[in-house]
């Protein structure tokens, strides 16, 4: 391991920690959240430094590390100023209404540990057989990383029109992430994309587990994490080095930030929502759709919250750096998406009223819901979880719009997927079969969060430990 690589890793970690500290209110309950968010946020943010380096200097390790150092130092200055201010009052977090016996907690923890070990083995086994990743990894993401890590200005070749088949319009977060460590190491090790896949996969599982545990107790948190790692293909997609797992992490972070905002009646979580939604947009084109949906979800007001312009300002402040990168990328290279390029607006109307297309998409979504969570297991596990959720959920009550925002974001994401399939210029059956599993994995952690938190939106401001509805 070279010194430059160690420095790059240290800077990424520092940047992620600083962003996690700045993007969440100083609340003791958020300490674990910041710890889980830091690695992935750091990897997301450091790609902006490499992108600026490439634009200004080409691919070169010294300017890249210099820019990262300046950013880390600047963020450290803001963090220190912030830490001098008094912390916000710690607000009680809703605690689960159902207390599990200790043996049940231990049992679920053991099952989770076995599941995590099994997932780690499955991850390793895919990486061992596919050291360069599977199809999309070497045809798109790692191939682009090889361009971005090349000396001088050879990186621009990745956006060549000749390579239209490799989707040169796709945003650059994942390939830049891989390239930054290749540049720092001075070598193209296949370990780097595999390690990045591992960090994002583990971070998504940890974040889901932590989030559900915080609001519904340790047992429910472990069960949520268990369903995700048992999902047929989620861990494998992470090991395959696809961008869908990193995207799913950023979607989950955004959805969780919106939920925390509603729970704590605290608009400052919109900064985190903006950062993570922009990282989603910087990861894949679907993330751009998600950014728009998430920005709309930032609109509803919380009680005692700030004005609409200030809410949008908070969200935009978080999103601005990576949206700027995205705009610079789209403006500089002007590569049109293969999908939009092939679309014919005149055929939209006919496609929208073609009921066979609706039936085909709905059927695919239905089947994917089952296969996403393990076809055989899920038809047993999901009803059990649903019944359990109902049994422990307390009486139904009216939900404020701001509390529904996370659920609306996930629904909006699926609506966007549905609409994209409806008007796709490609043969529908082929388009669905080649992408629907990945789309579902992008949303899977967030769907699980919504399922497990379905009734956990009780505001915490008046909550007494044990009194809030789980």
């Amino acid at each position: 391991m070279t010194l430059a690589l160690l420095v790059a890793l240290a800077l990424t970690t520092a940047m992620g920690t600083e962003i996690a500290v700045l993007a969440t209110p100083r609340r003791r309950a958020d300490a674990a959240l910041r710890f889980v968010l830091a690695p992935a946020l750091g990897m997301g943010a450091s790609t902006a430094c490499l992108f600026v380096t490439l634009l200004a200097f080409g691919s070169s390790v010294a300017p890249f590390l210099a820019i990262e150092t300046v950013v880390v130092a600047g963020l450290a200055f803001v963090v220190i100023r912030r830490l001098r201010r008094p912390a916000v009052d710690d607000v009680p977090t809703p605690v689960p209404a159902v207390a599990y016996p200790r043996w049940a907690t231990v049992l679920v923890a053991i099952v989770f540990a076995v599941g995590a070990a099994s997932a780690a083995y499955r991850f390793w086994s895919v990486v061992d057989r596919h050291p360069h990743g599977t199809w999309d990894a070497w045809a798109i993401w790692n191939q682009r990383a090889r361009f971005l890590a090349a000396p001088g200005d050879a990186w621009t070749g990745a956006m060549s029109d000749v390579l239209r088949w490799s989707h040169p319009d796709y945003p650059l977060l994942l390939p830049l992430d891989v390239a930054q460590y290749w540049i720092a190491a001075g070598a193209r090790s296949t370990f780097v994309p595999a390690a990045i896949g591992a960090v994002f996969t583990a971070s998504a599982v940890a974040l889901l587990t932590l989030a559900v545990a915080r609001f519904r107790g340790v047992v429910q948190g472990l069960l949520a994490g268990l369903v995700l790692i048992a999902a047929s293909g989620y861990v494998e997609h992470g090991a395959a080095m696809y961008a869908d797992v990193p995207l799913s992490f950023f979607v989950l972070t955004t959805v969780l930030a919106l939920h925390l905002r509603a729970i704590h009646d605290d608009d400052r979580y919109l900064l985190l929502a903006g950062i993570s939604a922009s990282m989603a947009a910087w990861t894949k084109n679907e993330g751009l759709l998600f950014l728009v949906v998430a920005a709309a979800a930032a609109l509803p007001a919380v009680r005692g919250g700030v004005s609409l312009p200030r809410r949008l300002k908070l969200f935009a402040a978080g999103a601005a750096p990576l949206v700027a990168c995205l705009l610079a990328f789209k403006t500089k290279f002007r590569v049109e998406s293969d999908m939009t390029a092939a679309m014919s607006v005149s055929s939209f109307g006919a496609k929208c009223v073609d009921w066979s297309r609706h039936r085909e998409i709905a059927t695919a979504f239905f089947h994917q819901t089952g296969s996403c969570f393990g076809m055989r297991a899920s038809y047993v596990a999901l009803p059990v979880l649903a019944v359990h959720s109902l049994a422990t959920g307390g009486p139904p009550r009216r939900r404020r719009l701001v509390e529904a925002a996370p659920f609306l974001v996930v629904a909006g994401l699926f609506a966007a997927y549905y609409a994209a399939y409806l008007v796709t210029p490609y043969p529908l059956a082929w388009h669905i079969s080649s992408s629907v599993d990945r789309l579902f994995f992008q949303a899977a952690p967030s769907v699980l969060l919504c399922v497990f938190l379905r009734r956990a939106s009780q505001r915490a401001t008046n909550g007494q430990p044990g009194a809030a509805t789980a």
Partner: protein
Amino acid sequence: LDSASAAAVDDVDAVDRRLAPLKDVLGSERIVGYVTDRTAPTDVSDVNDATAAYYKTQYALAPVVVERGTDHRFVIAECTKTPPAAESLCPGARVALDLGGGTFLLERPDVR
């Protein structure tokens, strides 16, 4: 990514190793051609062996851009037939390097 493809062992690493010597030969070349005797795909949804072989070649050679066709000084030829007839895929070219496995680097003296 279905369970079958996750379980299968691919040959990307093998292609990567086979084409590794080209990095030195191609030097500062930014774009090369590519021909194969495999059946060409008919459209975007026709992902056949020819598509996979071409994509793997591009992955192995990045940051050199690999363009289908013979319009460049250097052309990668992938032959599946025996005996391989790389030069017939690119008339006027000579074999600059035999990389094994039916893969050749052709050079067109008439293109600079």
